[in-house]
């Protein structure tokens, strides 16, 4: 049997083994989806309803004021009969923000202690005065501001498709890293027995790598399909580049997995260390919150985390973010070379017969 046939046999065997591992399948396919659903809704405002704001208007043209404020489209106004009634409603938790307009005085009341509404409170603080002064004064409009959502990539980006790209990046990376740890860690004895077979270490390694890569890729495509059909996300996938990035980043993370397996004596310790690495990497990858939000020292630390670059690369291949061709290919070359080097080294170390 030539090496290609052997490779296919190994690939098929590992694919069957992976398909039978329900936990791994769950963690590969459904877990990232749960993440996506939670984060797409919690962090990006996707699917949010208009903010409900209690309002009391003590002004003759209350209806016009209400209509004007509602015409901004940002708020749903719930009218109250008096200021005290509105305050009571806020204390009872019926609303988090209320506006009282009495003559020329605007009182913006809000329930303190909720960081999620502070942005909205600031927004209302700035907008409500402007809207009302525009309504009552014939404006001398000397400047007009036009806001344009600039297309840095091939399609207009949104918070949601940024998060999607991040979740896919993390999914690809964790698949790559943990697959190596489970193969070399949990099945060390099994691997030793395989040495007695006529399969070359490199063929064996290539077969395993190919299996994990195919699973990662299917998982990523599954996620892209669901996010497009269920969450109506828009992206322009450059499949060839996505494929290249998926291969090289999987290779690089497999190499990182090899490092963990080599450094730690047991597979459990390696798996724990890898989990810790992934959690910390996720925090500093700019996936769930922008790296700019971090202090400068932590921003520097974040620039050493590979997840950050893979997330950027995935955004680029989805067409929602810019990356120069040069940077993209350089990143892939670095990932591929480090991955191949470490995997070849690992195949020789782990498949070496015991003396």
């Amino acid at each position, binding site marked *: 049997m030539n090496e290609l046939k052997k490779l296919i046999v190994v690939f098929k065997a590992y694919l069957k083994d992976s398909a039978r591992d329900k936990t791994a399948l769950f963690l590969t396919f459904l877990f990232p989806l749960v993440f996506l659903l939670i984060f797409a809704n919690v962090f990006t405002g996707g699917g949010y309803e208009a903010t409900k704001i209690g309002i009391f208007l003590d002004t003759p043209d209350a209806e016009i004021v209400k209509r004007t404020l509602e015409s901004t489209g940002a708020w749903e106004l719930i009218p109250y009969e008096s200021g005290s009634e509105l*305050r009571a409603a806020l204390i009872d938790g019926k609303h988090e923000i209320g506006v009282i307009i009495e003559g020329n005085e605007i009182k913006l009341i809000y329930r*303190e202690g909720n*960081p999620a509404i502070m942005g909205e409170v600031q927004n209302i603080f700035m907008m409500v005065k402007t809207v009302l*002064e525009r309504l009552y004064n014939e404006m*001398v409009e000397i400047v*007009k501001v036009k806001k344009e*959502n*600039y297309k840095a990539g091939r399609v207009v980006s949104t918070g949601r498709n940024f998060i999607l790209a991040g979740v896919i990046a993390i999914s690809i990376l964790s698949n790559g890293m943990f697959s190596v740890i489970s193969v070399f860690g949990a099945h060390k004895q099994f691997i030793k027995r395989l040495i007695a077979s006529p399969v070359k270490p490199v063929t064996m390694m290539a077969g395993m790598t190919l299996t994990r890569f195919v699973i990662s890729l299917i998982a990523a495509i599954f996620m892209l399909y669901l996010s497009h059909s269920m969450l109506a996300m828009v992206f322009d996938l450059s499949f060839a580049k996505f494929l290249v990035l998926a291969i090289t980043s999987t290779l690089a993370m497999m190499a990182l997995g090899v490092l963990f397996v080599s450094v730690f004596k047991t597979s459990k310790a390696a798996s724990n260390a890898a989990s810790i690495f992934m959690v910390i990497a996720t925090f500093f990858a700019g996936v769930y919150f*922008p790296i700019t939000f971090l202090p400068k020292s932590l921003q520097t630390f974040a620039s050493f985390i590979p997840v950050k670059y893979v997330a950027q690369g995935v955004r680029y291949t989805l067409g929602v973010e810019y990356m120069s061709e040069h940077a993209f290919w350089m990143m892939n070359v670095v990932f591929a070379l480090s991955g191949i080097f470490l995997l070849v080294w690992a195949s020789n170390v782990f498949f070496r017969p015991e003396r």
Partner: protein
Amino acid sequence: MKIIRLGQGFFLSTFREFGSSFWILIFPLILYVIMCSIFGHFDEGNMGIRLGVVYEDKLGGPGKIIEMVLSKISGKNGPFEKTEYATREEGLEALKKDAIDVLFVVPKKTSIHMLRAMLGGKGGLPPASLLIFYVEGRTVSRIGANIIENIMDSINLEATRRHGGSYRSFNVAMEPIRKKEAMDFDFRYYFFPGVMLTAIISTSVFSFPIGFLEMRKNGLTRRLFATPITPLQFFWGYVFGMFMMVGLSIIGLYALAYFVYGVKQHIWEFKFIAMILYSIFTLFSLGLMLSAFARKLGTTVAISNITNYILMFLGGLYFPVFQVPFALRIIVYSLPSTYLVEGFRRFFGYDIVGLSWVSIFGVPAIWAIVSLVIFSLRFKKVMGYE
């Protein structure tokens, strides 16, 4: 006595295990530091939004207002770090390459248009068009564009006011509603209970189901039951061991919050500590219920992971989640962690959604009762002495 010794044994065994120690003892500390770093950074007003500016017009006359406004909001004065670009193309290229967050363009003839519009008065000539370019997907870019838009809009109001004639001006005042005993809002206090609950949840949803299952599978329970140790003693010993583990984690978090972040108020009060014990009781009960259904290690790990993330993120341990879509909100309102974290924050006077005290204690209590009933019914199976 046997229970205490068993508990010590389980505690030491868990403590010596690197993975468990990390997730229960170290991870909450790292998480607290990260959260405080991010939001402490905001509190200092260092948003550092990178603003690119292109002056296609040499500003003069009323146009100078724009320069003045931009200098007022840049550098030490405001949230922006300003960089000037010679051409719009250069600026857009910088925005594309993420070298800046927002690009503000002052097009040609802006000063003239502003002057004409000003002289033309109300309903006069068309105003000068200013352009803001941003990238929606980048959060900072979105925030920066909104700020600039609002600031530039205020220029019109100022021009109208100065133009003379009657001008109806509105005064806006902020009125935060807080309870009499409430403290000023502080992220260090806000995140403290959330991170503490993270430690309790991690212990509960992982250590109980996986711990009992592993001990059953590797035959430890069977061997132990051959000794004078009863299943009940074994059970209480394990619970005590995990309680010690969680206790150590909470002590570590208290030390970090107290000595490093200066979180000193309310956390030593009896009612706060009683709430910690109530949370441990409730969430441990939940963990016991999960262990009642644990059969295969792989499935158990998956269920524990999902439960952990749902309790953390949809329980609002870090960010309030009461405005998520209806389907997710049902989950939010049925989770015990939602009520526990709200209960803790009440002690600081932070009342996020106005839950009643009855629900704060009642919903977790229902979870605890149901969980303990289910666990009791399957006690023999979990302990492996059927």
